Protein backbone atom coordinates (compact mmCIF):
# COMPACT_ATOMS: atom_id res chain seq x y z
CA UNK A 1 0.00 0.00 0.00
CA UNK A 2 2.72 2.40 1.03
CA UNK A 3 4.67 1.52 -2.09
CA UNK A 4 1.68 2.26 -4.27
CA UNK A 5 1.28 5.66 -2.68
CA UNK A 6 4.95 6.53 -3.04
CA UNK A 7 5.12 5.78 -6.73
CA UNK A 8 1.93 6.80 -8.57
CA UNK A 9 0.85 3.80 -10.62
CA UNK A 10 0.88 3.81 -14.39
CA UNK A 11 -2.72 2.48 -14.63
CA UNK A 12 -3.64 6.02 -13.72
CA UNK A 13 -7.17 6.13 -15.21
CA UNK A 14 -9.19 5.54 -11.97
CA UNK A 15 -6.66 7.50 -10.06
CA UNK A 16 -7.07 10.84 -11.82
CA UNK A 17 -9.46 13.39 -13.32
CA UNK A 18 -7.59 14.63 -16.36
CA UNK A 19 -10.16 17.11 -17.70
CA UNK A 20 -10.14 20.56 -16.05
CA UNK A 21 -13.37 21.53 -14.29
CA UNK A 22 -13.44 24.96 -15.97
CA UNK A 23 -12.50 26.52 -19.29
CA UNK A 24 -10.28 29.20 -17.73
CA UNK A 25 -6.95 27.93 -16.37
CA UNK A 26 -6.19 28.01 -12.63
CA UNK A 27 -4.36 30.92 -11.04
CA UNK A 28 -1.61 29.81 -8.65
CA UNK A 29 -1.56 33.08 -6.71
CA UNK A 30 -5.26 32.86 -5.92
CA UNK A 31 -4.74 29.17 -5.18
CA UNK A 32 -2.06 29.86 -2.60
CA UNK A 33 -4.31 32.34 -0.81
CA UNK A 34 -7.14 29.78 -0.78
CA UNK A 35 -4.91 27.05 0.68
CA UNK A 36 -3.88 29.39 3.52
CA UNK A 37 -7.45 30.63 4.17
CA UNK A 38 -8.81 28.90 7.26
CA UNK A 39 -12.45 29.64 6.40
CA UNK A 40 -12.31 28.68 2.72
CA UNK A 41 -9.56 26.24 1.75
CA UNK A 42 -9.11 24.91 5.31
CA UNK A 43 -6.03 23.00 4.10
CA UNK A 44 -3.64 24.24 6.80
CA UNK A 45 -5.99 23.04 9.53
CA UNK A 46 -4.76 19.54 8.67
CA UNK A 47 -1.71 19.90 6.40
CA UNK A 48 1.57 21.64 7.05
CA UNK A 49 2.93 23.42 4.00
CA UNK A 50 5.54 25.91 2.77
CA UNK A 51 3.88 28.94 4.39
CA UNK A 52 6.54 30.49 6.65
CA UNK A 53 4.16 33.36 7.45
CA UNK A 54 1.34 31.10 8.71
CA UNK A 55 1.45 30.00 12.35
CA UNK A 56 -0.59 27.07 13.65
CA UNK A 57 -0.44 24.60 10.79
CA UNK A 58 -1.99 21.20 11.42
CA UNK A 59 -0.19 17.85 11.43
CA UNK A 60 -2.99 15.41 10.59
CA UNK A 61 -1.94 15.05 6.97
CA UNK A 62 1.12 14.93 4.67
CA UNK A 63 3.17 18.09 4.11
CA UNK A 64 1.96 19.88 0.99
CA UNK A 65 5.55 20.70 0.04
CA UNK A 66 6.51 18.47 -2.88
CA UNK A 67 2.88 17.56 -3.71
CA UNK A 68 3.45 18.82 -7.26
CA UNK A 69 6.29 16.40 -7.81
CA UNK A 70 4.61 13.42 -6.13
CA UNK A 71 1.42 13.65 -8.22
CA UNK A 72 0.46 14.86 -11.67
CA UNK A 73 -2.30 17.34 -12.42
CA UNK A 74 -5.07 14.80 -12.94
CA UNK A 75 -4.19 12.91 -9.77
CA UNK A 76 -4.19 16.10 -7.71
CA UNK A 77 -7.53 17.13 -9.21
CA UNK A 78 -9.12 13.87 -8.09
CA UNK A 79 -7.64 14.27 -4.60
CA UNK A 80 -9.26 17.68 -4.29
CA UNK A 81 -12.58 16.78 -5.88
CA UNK A 82 -13.16 13.61 -3.84
CA UNK A 83 -10.23 11.93 -2.12
CA UNK A 84 -12.64 9.28 -0.78
CA UNK A 85 -12.72 7.69 -4.21
CA UNK A 86 -9.12 6.67 -3.49
CA UNK A 87 -9.45 6.01 0.22
CA UNK A 88 -12.99 5.68 1.59
CA UNK A 89 -11.68 6.23 5.13
CA UNK A 90 -9.86 9.46 4.29
CA UNK A 91 -10.51 12.37 6.63
CA UNK A 92 -9.80 14.81 3.82
CA UNK A 93 -13.06 16.58 2.91
CA UNK A 94 -14.32 16.12 -0.64
CA UNK A 95 -14.07 19.65 -1.99
CA UNK A 96 -16.34 19.18 -4.99
CA UNK A 97 -19.11 16.84 -3.95
CA UNK A 98 -22.57 17.50 -2.50
CA UNK A 99 -24.24 14.08 -2.51
CA UNK A 100 -23.95 11.35 0.10
CA UNK A 101 -23.44 13.73 3.04
CA UNK A 102 -25.18 13.62 6.44
CA UNK A 103 -26.85 16.56 8.28
CA UNK A 104 -25.08 19.31 6.38
CA UNK A 105 -25.66 22.71 8.05
CA UNK A 106 -28.34 24.84 6.32
CA UNK A 107 -25.79 27.45 5.19
CA UNK A 108 -23.77 24.80 3.36
CA UNK A 109 -26.47 22.52 1.98
CA UNK A 110 -26.16 21.76 -1.72
CA UNK A 111 -22.91 23.73 -1.93
CA UNK A 112 -19.45 22.37 -2.57
CA UNK A 113 -16.60 23.40 -0.23
CA UNK A 114 -14.81 25.09 -3.13
CA UNK A 115 -16.10 26.15 -6.54
CA UNK A 116 -14.84 24.57 -9.74
CA UNK A 117 -12.67 27.61 -10.46
CA UNK A 118 -11.26 27.57 -6.92
CA UNK A 119 -10.32 23.89 -7.32
CA UNK A 120 -8.43 24.76 -10.51
CA UNK A 121 -6.70 27.66 -8.70
CA UNK A 122 -5.61 25.46 -5.78
CA UNK A 123 -4.46 22.86 -8.28
CA UNK A 124 -2.36 25.41 -10.18
CA UNK A 125 -0.70 26.32 -6.89
CA UNK A 126 -0.08 22.71 -5.81
CA UNK A 127 1.66 22.06 -9.15
CA UNK A 128 4.22 24.73 -8.24
CA UNK A 129 5.18 22.80 -5.07
CA UNK A 130 8.05 20.80 -6.56
CA UNK A 131 10.36 20.73 -3.58
CA UNK A 132 10.00 18.31 -0.65
CA UNK A 133 9.90 19.69 2.88
CA UNK A 134 13.30 19.61 4.63
CA UNK A 135 13.54 16.59 6.93
Amino acid at each position, binding site marked *: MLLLLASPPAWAQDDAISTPLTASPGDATRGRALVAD*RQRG*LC*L*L*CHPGPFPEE*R*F*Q*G*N*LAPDLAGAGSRWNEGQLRLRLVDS*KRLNPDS*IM*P*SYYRTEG*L*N*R*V*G*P*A*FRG*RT*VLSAQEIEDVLAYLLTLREEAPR
Partner: protein
Amino acid sequence: MKRALPILLLAPLCLSASAQERRSGFENMARDTQAMQTDDTANPGMLWVLEGQSLWHQPAGPAAQSCASCHQNTEVSMRGVAARYPAWDEASAAPIDLAGRIAQCRETRQGAPPLARESQGLLSLSAYVGNQSRGLPIAPPADPRMDAAREQGRALYTARRGQLDLSCAQCHDDNAGRRLAGSTIPQAHPTGYPLYRLEWQTLGSLQRRLRGCMTGVRAEPFAYGASEYVAIEAFLASRAQGMALETPAVRP
Protein backbone atom coordinates in the same frame (compact mmCIF):
# COMPACT_ATOMS: atom_id res chain seq x y z
CA MET B 1 -27.27 -13.16 35.73
CA LYS B 2 -29.37 -10.01 35.43
CA ARG B 3 -26.67 -8.11 37.28
CA ALA B 4 -23.81 -9.17 35.03
CA LEU B 5 -25.49 -8.22 31.78
CA PRO B 6 -25.07 -4.44 31.82
CA ILE B 7 -21.37 -4.77 32.52
CA LEU B 8 -20.99 -7.12 29.57
CA LEU B 9 -22.85 -4.69 27.38
CA LEU B 10 -20.68 -1.80 28.49
CA ALA B 11 -17.42 -3.59 27.77
CA PRO B 12 -17.34 -3.21 23.96
CA LEU B 13 -18.04 0.50 24.28
CA CYS B 14 -14.87 0.96 26.28
CA LEU B 15 -12.54 -0.87 23.91
CA SER B 16 -11.56 1.94 21.56
CA ALA B 17 -10.91 4.36 24.40
CA SER B 18 -8.71 1.94 26.29
CA ALA B 19 -6.71 1.04 23.19
CA GLN B 20 -4.68 4.17 23.88
CA GLU B 21 -4.04 5.52 27.35
CA ARG B 22 -6.90 7.75 28.39
CA ARG B 23 -6.00 11.38 28.98
CA SER B 24 -8.16 14.25 30.09
CA GLY B 25 -8.05 17.39 27.94
CA PHE B 26 -6.34 18.87 31.01
CA GLU B 27 -3.13 17.03 30.08
CA ASN B 28 -2.90 18.81 26.73
CA MET B 29 -3.02 22.27 28.26
CA ALA B 30 -0.18 24.70 28.83
CA ARG B 31 1.16 24.88 32.39
CA ASP B 32 -0.41 28.25 33.14
CA THR B 33 -3.86 27.11 31.95
CA GLN B 34 -3.54 24.02 34.14
CA ALA B 35 -2.61 26.23 37.08
CA MET B 36 -5.67 28.39 36.39
CA GLN B 37 -7.86 25.28 36.74
CA THR B 38 -6.26 23.82 39.84
CA ASP B 39 -6.06 27.06 41.83
CA ASP B 40 -9.60 27.81 43.00
CA THR B 41 -8.77 31.47 43.53
CA ALA B 42 -7.70 31.77 39.87
CA ASN B 43 -10.31 29.44 38.32
CA PRO B 44 -13.03 31.64 36.77
CA GLY B 45 -15.45 28.68 36.95
CA MET B 46 -15.52 29.03 40.74
CA LEU B 47 -17.58 32.22 40.30
CA TRP B 48 -20.37 30.07 38.85
CA VAL B 49 -19.95 27.52 41.65
CA LEU B 50 -20.44 30.30 44.22
CA GLU B 51 -23.42 31.67 42.32
CA GLY B 52 -24.84 28.12 42.19
CA GLN B 53 -24.36 27.73 45.92
CA SER B 54 -26.42 30.81 46.63
CA LEU B 55 -29.14 29.73 44.15
CA TRP B 56 -29.18 26.32 45.84
CA HIS B 57 -30.21 27.95 49.10
CA GLN B 58 -32.61 30.45 47.58
CA PRO B 59 -36.33 29.73 48.12
CA ALA B 60 -38.38 29.75 44.90
CA GLY B 61 -41.81 28.71 43.67
CA PRO B 62 -45.20 28.80 45.44
CA ALA B 63 -44.03 26.80 48.49
CA ALA B 64 -40.89 28.94 48.81
CA GLN B 65 -38.71 25.87 48.88
CA SER B 66 -35.02 25.86 47.98
CA CYS B 67 -33.01 22.96 46.56
CA ALA B 68 -31.49 22.68 50.03
CA SER B 69 -34.94 22.22 51.62
CA CYS B 70 -35.19 18.81 49.92
CA HIS B 71 -31.48 17.95 49.61
CA GLN B 72 -30.10 18.75 53.02
CA ASN B 73 -26.44 18.43 53.80
CA THR B 74 -25.35 19.15 50.23
CA GLU B 75 -21.73 18.01 50.60
CA VAL B 76 -23.03 14.55 51.44
CA SER B 77 -26.27 14.32 49.49
CA MET B 78 -24.79 15.67 46.23
CA ARG B 79 -21.42 13.97 46.46
CA GLY B 80 -21.01 11.55 43.54
CA VAL B 81 -24.26 12.59 41.85
CA ALA B 82 -22.66 14.32 38.85
CA ALA B 83 -20.38 11.28 38.36
CA ARG B 84 -23.44 9.09 37.65
CA TYR B 85 -25.13 11.23 34.98
CA PRO B 86 -26.70 10.84 32.42
CA ALA B 87 -29.04 8.45 34.22
CA TRP B 88 -32.48 6.95 33.68
CA ASP B 89 -35.38 9.29 34.43
CA GLU B 90 -38.46 7.43 35.63
CA ALA B 91 -40.77 10.40 35.06
CA SER B 92 -40.04 10.73 31.35
CA ALA B 93 -38.98 7.08 30.91
CA ALA B 94 -35.87 8.32 29.10
CA PRO B 95 -32.23 9.12 29.87
CA ILE B 96 -31.65 12.56 31.37
CA ASP B 97 -28.44 14.53 31.91
CA LEU B 98 -27.54 16.48 35.04
CA ALA B 99 -28.66 19.86 33.68
CA GLY B 100 -31.92 18.26 32.57
CA ARG B 101 -32.45 16.78 36.03
CA ILE B 102 -31.79 20.11 37.75
CA ALA B 103 -34.18 21.92 35.40
CA GLN B 104 -36.79 19.22 35.98
CA CYS B 105 -36.51 19.42 39.78
CA ARG B 106 -36.86 23.15 39.63
CA GLU B 107 -39.92 23.09 37.43
CA THR B 108 -41.89 20.13 38.74
CA ARG B 109 -40.86 19.92 42.41
CA GLN B 110 -40.06 23.52 43.24
CA GLY B 111 -42.69 24.91 40.85
CA ALA B 112 -40.32 27.70 39.90
CA PRO B 113 -40.02 29.27 36.43
CA PRO B 114 -38.04 26.99 34.08
CA LEU B 115 -34.31 27.44 33.62
CA ALA B 116 -33.25 27.38 29.97
CA ARG B 117 -30.21 25.42 28.79
CA GLU B 118 -27.05 27.58 28.98
CA SER B 119 -28.82 30.11 31.20
CA GLN B 120 -26.69 31.59 33.94
CA GLY B 121 -28.89 29.91 36.59
CA LEU B 122 -28.76 26.40 35.16
CA LEU B 123 -25.02 26.59 34.46
CA SER B 124 -24.38 27.83 37.99
CA LEU B 125 -26.43 25.10 39.64
CA SER B 126 -24.80 22.47 37.39
CA ALA B 127 -21.35 23.80 38.29
CA TYR B 128 -22.20 23.75 42.01
CA VAL B 129 -23.59 20.19 41.95
CA GLY B 130 -20.74 19.06 39.65
CA ASN B 131 -18.18 20.54 41.99
CA GLN B 132 -19.41 18.27 44.81
CA SER B 133 -18.05 15.33 42.78
CA ARG B 134 -14.69 16.87 41.91
CA GLY B 135 -11.99 14.21 42.04
CA LEU B 136 -14.46 11.31 42.05
CA PRO B 137 -14.35 8.71 39.27
CA ILE B 138 -17.00 8.86 36.54
CA ALA B 139 -19.36 6.02 37.38
CA PRO B 140 -22.10 5.49 34.76
CA PRO B 141 -25.08 3.59 36.14
CA ALA B 142 -25.12 -0.13 35.27
CA ASP B 143 -28.84 0.34 34.50
CA PRO B 144 -29.59 -1.68 31.35
CA ARG B 145 -32.29 0.83 30.41
CA MET B 146 -29.38 3.19 29.60
CA ASP B 147 -27.82 0.76 27.12
CA ALA B 148 -29.87 1.80 24.09
CA ALA B 149 -28.86 5.46 24.62
CA ARG B 150 -25.20 4.54 25.04
CA GLU B 151 -25.39 2.53 21.82
CA GLN B 152 -27.12 5.41 20.01
CA GLY B 153 -24.42 7.73 21.35
CA ARG B 154 -21.71 5.47 20.01
CA ALA B 155 -23.41 5.44 16.59
CA LEU B 156 -23.65 9.25 16.59
CA TYR B 157 -20.00 9.45 17.62
CA THR B 158 -18.82 7.29 14.74
CA ALA B 159 -21.12 8.72 12.02
CA ARG B 160 -19.64 11.18 9.55
CA ARG B 161 -21.53 14.44 9.34
CA GLY B 162 -21.55 17.90 7.85
CA GLN B 163 -20.15 19.36 4.65
CA LEU B 164 -16.66 18.35 5.84
CA ASP B 165 -17.91 14.78 6.34
CA LEU B 166 -16.06 13.98 9.57
CA SER B 167 -17.05 11.86 12.56
CA CYS B 168 -16.19 12.54 16.18
CA ALA B 169 -14.16 9.31 16.21
CA GLN B 170 -12.01 10.36 13.27
CA CYS B 171 -10.72 13.31 15.25
CA HIS B 172 -10.95 12.14 18.84
CA ASP B 173 -9.97 8.46 18.48
CA ASP B 174 -7.89 8.34 15.29
CA ASN B 175 -6.15 11.72 15.56
CA ALA B 176 -6.16 12.59 19.27
CA GLY B 177 -2.89 14.20 20.29
CA ARG B 178 -2.26 15.59 16.80
CA ARG B 179 -2.75 19.23 15.94
CA LEU B 180 -5.75 20.63 14.10
CA ALA B 181 -4.26 24.03 13.21
CA GLY B 182 -3.17 25.34 16.63
CA SER B 183 -5.30 23.04 18.81
CA THR B 184 -4.15 19.70 20.14
CA ILE B 185 -7.08 17.35 19.56
CA PRO B 186 -8.18 15.95 22.94
CA GLN B 187 -9.68 12.49 23.46
CA ALA B 188 -13.07 14.11 24.13
CA HIS B 189 -13.55 13.01 27.72
CA PRO B 190 -16.44 14.78 29.46
CA THR B 191 -14.54 15.18 32.73
CA GLY B 192 -14.68 18.94 33.20
CA TYR B 193 -18.21 20.15 32.49
CA PRO B 194 -19.62 22.66 32.86
CA LEU B 195 -16.27 24.36 32.28
CA TYR B 196 -14.76 27.76 31.64
CA ARG B 197 -13.47 27.97 28.09
CA LEU B 198 -11.06 30.79 27.35
CA GLU B 199 -12.35 30.98 23.78
CA TRP B 200 -15.94 31.43 25.03
CA GLN B 201 -14.85 33.72 27.85
CA THR B 202 -17.59 32.13 29.92
CA LEU B 203 -18.78 28.87 31.41
CA GLY B 204 -20.44 26.41 29.06
CA SER B 205 -22.00 22.96 29.10
CA LEU B 206 -20.90 19.75 27.42
CA GLN B 207 -23.79 20.21 24.98
CA ARG B 208 -22.37 23.59 23.99
CA ARG B 209 -19.02 21.89 23.32
CA LEU B 210 -20.70 19.20 21.21
CA ARG B 211 -22.55 21.85 19.20
CA GLY B 212 -19.23 23.59 18.59
CA CYS B 213 -17.67 20.44 17.18
CA MET B 214 -20.73 19.84 14.99
CA THR B 215 -20.83 23.33 13.52
CA GLY B 216 -17.04 23.04 13.08
CA VAL B 217 -17.58 20.29 10.51
CA ARG B 218 -20.41 22.39 9.02
CA ALA B 219 -23.12 20.06 10.27
CA GLU B 220 -26.53 21.08 11.57
CA PRO B 221 -26.32 20.80 15.37
CA PHE B 222 -29.19 19.32 17.40
CA ALA B 223 -31.34 21.59 19.56
CA TYR B 224 -30.21 22.04 23.16
CA GLY B 225 -31.60 19.27 25.33
CA ALA B 226 -32.15 16.91 22.35
CA SER B 227 -32.11 13.20 23.15
CA GLU B 228 -29.22 12.83 20.68
CA TYR B 229 -26.99 14.96 22.91
CA VAL B 230 -27.99 13.04 26.02
CA ALA B 231 -27.12 9.84 24.12
CA ILE B 232 -23.67 11.18 23.17
CA GLU B 233 -23.14 12.34 26.76
CA ALA B 234 -24.05 8.85 28.02
CA PHE B 235 -21.65 7.24 25.55
CA LEU B 236 -18.83 9.64 26.46
CA ALA B 237 -19.43 8.92 30.17
CA SER B 238 -19.16 5.15 29.58
CA ARG B 239 -15.99 5.72 27.57
CA ALA B 240 -14.53 7.84 30.40
CA GLN B 241 -15.66 5.50 33.19
CA GLY B 242 -13.25 5.76 36.12
CA MET B 243 -11.67 9.07 35.06
CA ALA B 244 -11.76 11.84 37.69
CA LEU B 245 -14.28 14.67 37.46
CA GLU B 246 -12.73 18.16 37.30
CA THR B 247 -15.78 20.45 37.44
CA PRO B 248 -15.35 23.34 36.91
CA ALA B 249 -12.44 22.73 34.50
CA VAL B 250 -10.70 25.32 32.32
CA ARG B 251 -10.02 24.72 28.61
CA PRO B 252 -8.34 26.88 25.93
